[in-house]
């Protein structure tokens, strides 16, 4: 690493899952009534970057692709201790699949320049593909370490040691910088924002907004137009719980337990399984 550590955190603003519905006519997602939040694991990625800054110095940049209403959320994240935010906002970015999303974020990271560590969340709570972090790494031809729990510098400070979760436990990776990380949800406790810092930010706004014209990319590679995948059908999973009986068993706790006991043993018997053993 030459000079100070420059970390960049990718923050996706997502609608709260419970508040999204499908418009049956147009077969599109109705996010209109949903409140937004920063994707929870992205807050853990931000906390990881801020903790590195506390220890080793340097600076933290934020990057988000999304509509203009994302800006106040970026300010709140800045107030936690980040230094600068970049918002990629343009209709041309809309409808991007993971290929186009990672291409756009990678182009912005290239333009920002001198980034040592890109930190993402493990997956988003809406699309939940987990493909954007490896995608960014591939576009930038950087190494990747996903599902990270912790990161530490080695003595030379040009490699990091990453402990990450895999299918049957954990592994420790030695990763040369610059690199792309994705961070496991709830791996740390994101700090509160510093309200004094928020007030100070209002005066001197460190949010830069870029449109497609600001990035060095072929406009045909952006958004829905640049996406090889397309959604051919959409539906709400109302079916999931709708087949359930939702029968309420009432009484004192002992009576409830007794009713449950009878129903459960009857069910197990009809399913050909004794209540004990199996």
């Amino acid at each position, binding site marked *: 690493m030459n000079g100070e550590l420059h970390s960049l955190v990718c923050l996706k603003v997502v609608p709260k*899952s*419970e508040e*999204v519905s499908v418009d049956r006519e147009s077969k599109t997602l109705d996010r209109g009534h949903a409140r937004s939040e920063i994707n929870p694991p992205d807050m853990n990625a931000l906390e990881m970057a801020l903790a590195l800054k506390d220890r080793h110095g340097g600076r933290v940049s934020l990057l988000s692709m999304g509509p203009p209403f994302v800006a106040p959320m970026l300010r709140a994240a800045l107030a936690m201790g980040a230094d600068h935010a970049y918002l990629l906002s343009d209709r041309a970015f809309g409808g991007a699949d*993971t*290929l186009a999303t990672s291409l756009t974020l990678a182009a912005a990271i290239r333009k920002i320049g001198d980034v040592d560590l890109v930190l993402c969340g493990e997956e988003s709570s*809406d*699309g*939940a*593909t*987990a*493909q954007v972090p*490896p*995608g960014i*790494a*591939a576009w930038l031809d950087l*190494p*990747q370490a996903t599902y990270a729990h912790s990161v530490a510098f080695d003595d030379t400070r040009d490699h990091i040691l990453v402990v990450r*979760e*895999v*299918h*049957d*436990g954990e*592994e*420790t990776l*030695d*990763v*040369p910088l610059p690199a792309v990380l994705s961070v496991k949800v709830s791996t740390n406790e994101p700090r509160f924002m510093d309200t004094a810092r928020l007030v100070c930010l209002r005066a001197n706004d460190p949010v830069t907004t870029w449109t497609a014209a600001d990035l060095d990319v072929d406009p*045909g*590679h952006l958004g829905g137009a*640049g*996406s*090889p*995948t397309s*959604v*051919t059908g*959409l539906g709400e*999973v109302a079916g*999931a*719980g709708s087949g*359930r*009986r*939702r*029968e*309420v*068993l009432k009484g004192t*706790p*002992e009576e*409830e*337990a007794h009713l*449950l*006991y009878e129903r*459960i*043993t009857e*069910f*197990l018997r009809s*399913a050909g*399984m*004794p*209540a004990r*053993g199996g």
Partner: protein
Amino acid sequence: MIDPAYTPAEATGIWVFLEHDRGQLAPVSLEMLAKARELASKSGAILTGLLMGHELDAIAGEAAHLDLDRLVVVAHPLLDAFTAEAYAHAAREVILRERPDILLLGATPYGRDLAGRLAVTLRTGLTADCTDLSLDAANGLLLGEVSGFGGGILATIACANHRPQMATVRPGVFARTEAERAAAAPIERVEVDIPASARPVTVVARHRQERADISRADRLVVAGAGARGQLPLIEALAGALHAEIGATRVAVDEGWAGRDRQIGQTGVITHPKLAIVCGASGATQFTVGIDQADLVVALNSDPEAPIFEQADLCVVDDLLPVVRALVAEFESRGEGAP
């Protein structure tokens, strides 16, 4: 639109990435293979398994008896431990040479790492974490069914013009078949050139935890945040029913159960006959993991808890006295079997 690496007209066959570890094929690879065979027999496609790693003779011998038509083996010392960079480098070379129409990978940590990187270097689309796969009757395109927003929404995704059509498949959604080949499939060893620079990352330690697999458990007793302080009771109920313990993410974060017992979007999709859910609110990220249960019992003190929408039998009460009495019934009356 980004130019495809090769066109649909140049593409043939269905490929399945065979993930393995310590000489064992990943369950999801076998599950995908069963589905891939179903698709292949509809379209007449040739089904190829892709096995990558180092010193693969034993596992290749085993894989050659799986229900596939060809086995492509890519062995190289730099593929000894999984790293996304080296695997993507090697896979890309093979894919560009062989030009498959469809490439399926498991949505495991390694599968997702490889798929996300490979899709970009191949400039193609990827349908992620599929819960179903089919072929479009009209044009033969691969249709991947995916869920989003914590499972609340289902979408069907296709990749019309770029190849291979890539998809990752959620573990536990397809049933594996016992279908086997009597005669081993032909093994084709493919040479790849992997420069040292293509493996920048080193795996310096591997810490394995014995992992419970609750994805196929018959009976589950699930602890949510509302089970605070009541874990011994939850365990007693599971013991009385010979059930496995499952947990919501909050319960796992609290350390009441291991990560391997987390149910839901970022945990395990389960298929029990019976699930007794104690003190979980019923967030969609959790309930996707119990949707396939035959009978769901929910205990929660809040009558408005969304879990009751997803349950067959509902008890609106403090779980402590109810579960205590239920355990006592099972213990005193013992066998409920006929």
